[in-house]
């Protein structure tokens, strides 16, 4: 079975259809919504497998299908699908992990009143994520990127009646959008410089030599090559989405969402989108390596950020006590690893780690979800304990996931993918600091995972909810088992002896392996470090198990200030709240006052002034101009009043007047002599 690139849109379209069905299904239609979502995801998985066979037939080809979206006058903005091994592997991973998590969710969410809405959002997320993977245009990728962020927002805030969840959702959306701003600007710049946003377009795409050559030839502020500047702006998007330092603060808070969401979005897929993005535009990121002496290589920044994040995430993970937050910081740290690999020039190592990490971290999160579900939503590892007995399947699979994450040698996939990254970092000729950061993170990862497992599964139950825990139904354990199998098996696709996956990603038809003995020293060192981390962890937490929830952490008693700092996550949240948050708020308040009192005040002042002039004119009019007229009419009125007083209505009075008048008349005639 194979799937041509023209039909690639079916892969994101099916979950989108399922999301539509879920949105229109009434609350009662639980079976329909879940069935549609799982069915769509299953078919999308089969289609992805088909796409993978197509892609593997010609691994070096970048099959693209482009079409115009809308016309801008100068040239149409074009979108398209892209099929190459990178897309295909990612699609298979996302659909497969997604399918298992969907199935797990049926069990995990079955008591929730908004079950149908949950599956609607999950399907929406899957559609956007798959769209992001198949996009052949930075614009389409950006569109899906935003939709992925939206779905993440909706799912983190799924239990929005918890204030913490609502706040976390908002924080996640805004923080990633800060990064997206960089991505948007990078995209604008790229479009302005090349006139296209298509990755591959038969020689005219932005990742093809023509465009890259012109981008690297131009310089901009500070002597940076334009390609470097654009690459760094695009990397901003990856920093936000993949929870890299300094925008990592949203990812731990995002654990307020339901656990399957954490597994799907905040461990396996969405947070890896940043890594995928950099891998996708890797030719653009790497093209400035050709320059003789640029002020800065884009990839150096990537490596630096990755190394800082890897170390910082692992350090903070040591001191957390919420089972999901420990895993979240572990995710931050592992994503830092992947960025480090990208930065040091081995994007295939990054993608290999991304794929293996997706499986074992999804496994760990679902295992944590299983624990949380069984323990009546108790997430604090100090309250748990002793779950090894009642939850055997969960424990076994969780242990496998832990070993894969820590890199227990040879059998587990995480070992092989982490080896690849360490080797690449070791060979990087710019600096060895990322390599040492990676080694330190190996020890720390082993340490905190041992702590997590020891506190959660060993010892005795330290709370009622933990003591009543029992194994979950098979709809939840079956995905765990399948993921555990994958967490082991996947590693053998990319061992140094037979690096099939890496070769296919690089577009090579043949696989050139080499003996494990080459670079064996490094491998032995890393095995030793893993053993050290596990050993120390077990020595501190395993040999003397925690007896009560209130007991202090052994590390806390030994090194109180260090532990407090790590527990406070280096105070990034507080720092941002005190600086960016407060500044933003202050500006907003000032602007509001400005609007209310200054701009509006000016207008009101003008209005008052106008009114004042009006009053003054009215007074003048009243006294000077109207005065004479008023006096005249007043006297007329008084005269009228006086006359009307004579009209007494007394007929005798009238007659008397007539008589007097008559007498006067007679007298006048007599005295006047009748003339």
């Amino acid at each position: 079975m194979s799937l041509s690139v023209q039909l690639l849109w079916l892969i994101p379209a099916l979950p989108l259809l399922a999301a539509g069905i879920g949105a229109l299904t009434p609350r009662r239609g639980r079976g329909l919504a879940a069935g549609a979502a799982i069915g769509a995801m299953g078919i999308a998985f089969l289609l992805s497998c088909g796409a993978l066979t197509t892609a593997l037939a010609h691994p070096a080809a970048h099959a693209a299908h482009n079409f115009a979206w809308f016309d801008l006058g100068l040239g149409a903005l074009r979108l398209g699908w892209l099929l190459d091994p990178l897309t295909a592997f990612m699609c298979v991973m996302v659909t497969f992990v997604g399918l298992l998590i969907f199935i797990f969710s049926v069990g995990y969410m079955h008591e929730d009143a908004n079950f149908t809405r949950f599956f609607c959002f999950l399907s929406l997320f899957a559609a956007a994520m798959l769209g992001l993977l198949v996009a052949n245009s930075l614009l389409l990728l950006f569109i899906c990127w935003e939709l992925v962020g939206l779905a993440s927002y909706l799912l983190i805030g799924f239990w929005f009646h918890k204030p913490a969840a609502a706040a976390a959702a908002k924080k996640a959306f805004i923080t990633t959008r800060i990064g997206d701003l960089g991505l948007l600007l990078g995209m604008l710049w790229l479009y302005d410089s090349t006139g296209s946003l298509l990755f591959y377009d038969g020689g005219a795409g932005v990742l093809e030599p023509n465009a890259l050559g012109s981008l690297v030839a131009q310089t901009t502020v500070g002597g940076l090559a334009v390609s470097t500047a654009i690459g760094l702006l695009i990397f901003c998007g990856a920093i936000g989405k993949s929870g890299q330092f300094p925008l990592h603060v949203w990812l731990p808070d995002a654990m307020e969402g339901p656990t399957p969401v954490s597994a799907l979005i905040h461990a396996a897929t969405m947070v890896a989108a940043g890594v995928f993005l950099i891998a996708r535009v890797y030719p653009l990121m790497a093209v400035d390596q050709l320059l003789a002496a640029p002020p800065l290589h884009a990839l150096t920044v990537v490596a630096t950020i990755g190394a800082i994040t890897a170390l910082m995430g692992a350090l903070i993970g040591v001191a957390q006590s919420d089972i999901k937050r420990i895993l979240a910081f572990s995710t931050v740290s592992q994503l830092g690893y992947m960025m480090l690999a990208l930065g040091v020039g081995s994007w295939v190592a990054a993608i290999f780690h991304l794929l293996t990490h997706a499986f074992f971290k999804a496994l760990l999160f679902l295992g944590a979800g299983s624990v949380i579900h069984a323990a009546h939503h108790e997430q604090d590892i100090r309250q748990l304990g002793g779950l090894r007995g009642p939850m055997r399947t969960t424990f076994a699979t969780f242990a496998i996931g832990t070993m894969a994450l820590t890199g227990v040698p040879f059998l587990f996939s995480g070992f092989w993918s982490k080896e690849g990254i360490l080797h690449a970092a070791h060979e990087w000729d710019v600096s060895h600091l990322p390599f040492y950061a990676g080694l330190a993170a190996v020890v720390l990862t082993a340490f905190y995972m041992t702590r997590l497992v020891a506190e959660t599964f060993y010892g005795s139950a330290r709370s009622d909810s933990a003591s009543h825990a029992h194994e979950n139904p098979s709809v939840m354990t079956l995905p765990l088992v399948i993921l555990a199998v994958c967490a082991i098996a996947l590693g053998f696709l990319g061992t140094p002896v037979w690096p099939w996956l890496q070769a296919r990603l690089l577009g090579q038809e043949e696989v050139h392996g080499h003996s494990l003995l080459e670079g064996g020293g490094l491998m032995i060192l890393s095995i030793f470090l893993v053993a050290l981390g596990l050993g120390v962890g077990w020595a501190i937490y395993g040999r003397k198990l925690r007896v009560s929830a209130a007991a202090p952490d052994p590390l806390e008693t030994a090194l109180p200030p260090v532990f407090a700092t790590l527990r406070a996550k280096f105070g990034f949240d507080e720092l941002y709240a005190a600086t960016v948050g407060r500044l933003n708020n202050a500006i907003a308040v000032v602007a509001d006052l400005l609007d209310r009192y200054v701009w509006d005040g000016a207008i009101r002042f003008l209005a008052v002034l106008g009114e004042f002039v009006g009053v003054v004119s009215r007074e003048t009019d009243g006294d000077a101009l109207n005065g004479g007229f008023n006096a005249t009419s007043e006297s007329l009125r008084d005269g009228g009043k006086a006359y009307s007083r004579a009209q007494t209505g007394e007929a005798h009075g009238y007659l008397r007047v007539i008589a007097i008048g008559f007498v006067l008349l007679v007298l006048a005639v007599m005295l006047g002599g009748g003339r």
Partner: protein
Amino acid sequence: MNLLPWTIYLSLGGALLVLVAGARSAATARWLALASATAGWVIALLAAQDFNPGPGLQTLVDVPWIPEMGVRYHLAADGISLTLIVLTGLAATAGILFSWNIEERTNEFFALFLTLIGGVYGVFLSSDAFVFFVFYEIAIVPKYFLIANWGSTNREYGAMKLVLYSFAGSALVLAGVIWAYATAGSHSFALGDLASAAVNFSRGQQLGMFALIFLGFAVLAGMFPFHTWAPTGHVAAPTAASMLLAGVVMKLGAYGCLRVAMPLFPVGLAYWQPFIAWLAIIGIIYAGLIALVQDDFKFVIGYSSVSHMGFVLLGLAAANAQAVSGAVLQMFSHGVIAGLLFAVVGRMVYERTHTRKLADLRRMPLHKLMPFAALTFVLAGLASMGMPGFSGFPAELTILIGTWKVSPLWATFAAAGVLVAAAFTLRVIQVSFFGTTEGLRAVSHEVHHAGHDGPGDHSHFVPITWPERTGALLLIAATVYVGLKPDVLLNLIGPALQSPLFQAALKGGTP
């Protein structure tokens, strides 16, 4: 196409008919108003369907009106006016649907409403500066009565401020137009004649006339710092009037800038460009930040309108084909989205809860009590923050692409405005509709004890009525359709910008 002038006549005639025939029964008035608005919209849609895009205005009517002054009743349309006429029809229809519950002097309300609409159609169609101005004034006057009679909070103040600003703006415009007319001496108000005469104006005259006319129109488009009429006016206005105010009337200003100021005085445009752009950018961010700290639901939306209109002005100021077509697209998009937001806030929420204070709304679990309104508002909010899939995204993207060509710095700041928009939209969504459920418990508790007429009983809000549903669905459909296929409008707008008049402006006055 030739039916287009009938949009004006139908609206004005409909206003008269509603006034007379609707005096007895409110229902008659409503249905008559709905019929004439819908008819106008249908005419607009048919015209857009038949329209043969080409550069330049296509004359519809041209007869002498006041021969002594050379005024001609000259109506003409191009793709830009068609886009906005379609928007006007849509906003008018939706506005009437959302005013279905007006019981007090219904016939007068709808008569004024239709008069306003008729004036707006007239502005978008006129191609003679004098006729333009006449219709512009026809559109301004009914606003005052709509707000002062049917408005809410502080309505006399809001109405008076709005009208004073509008008249101050139109006084500037009138002064500028008369100056140009007198200087040109060609005894004609036709835009084309004025433009060809303006080529010979001195630089100083061009700068002065452009400043007068652009500023006069930009006041109505809500340009910082002349925007303060917009939030208070929107807040004071009845729902349908806020919808029209934000949806259409603010576009009149932007349209005036685009249709009169820019093509007539390209030299002036080139000079003032950076000032306008920076004012627009300040407006985008400044209004967004203010929206972040408002505690009145409607003020948030009012300021978001100012912020979005900043994008329109920025697109106009960038003055190239991409940015300007993006600005026109943004006019359409914002008209629809702002209409939707005001409909939810003013009609669906306020008419039922009788409060707009976010602090009060936070305590009502509105998503449970009116799920349809919550869904509508979430969709409108997403559209407003420029989420892909809604019309705001292609519009803002196009503006940013065009602006980047002129100045990457402008584009950077404007893009930061999108971030602010996301922040205040999410805040208001969460606070207004998705408050804590503690409120719900308290409410059901009260209902349980106080019986069904007790205080604080929110559980029997009037259900969302069919006109509200229809109006909301119309607007959502419009924003999604344009969001997915911006081509339908851009194919109208693009060719219109190819006309020689616009080409001179877009090249910065250097022919």
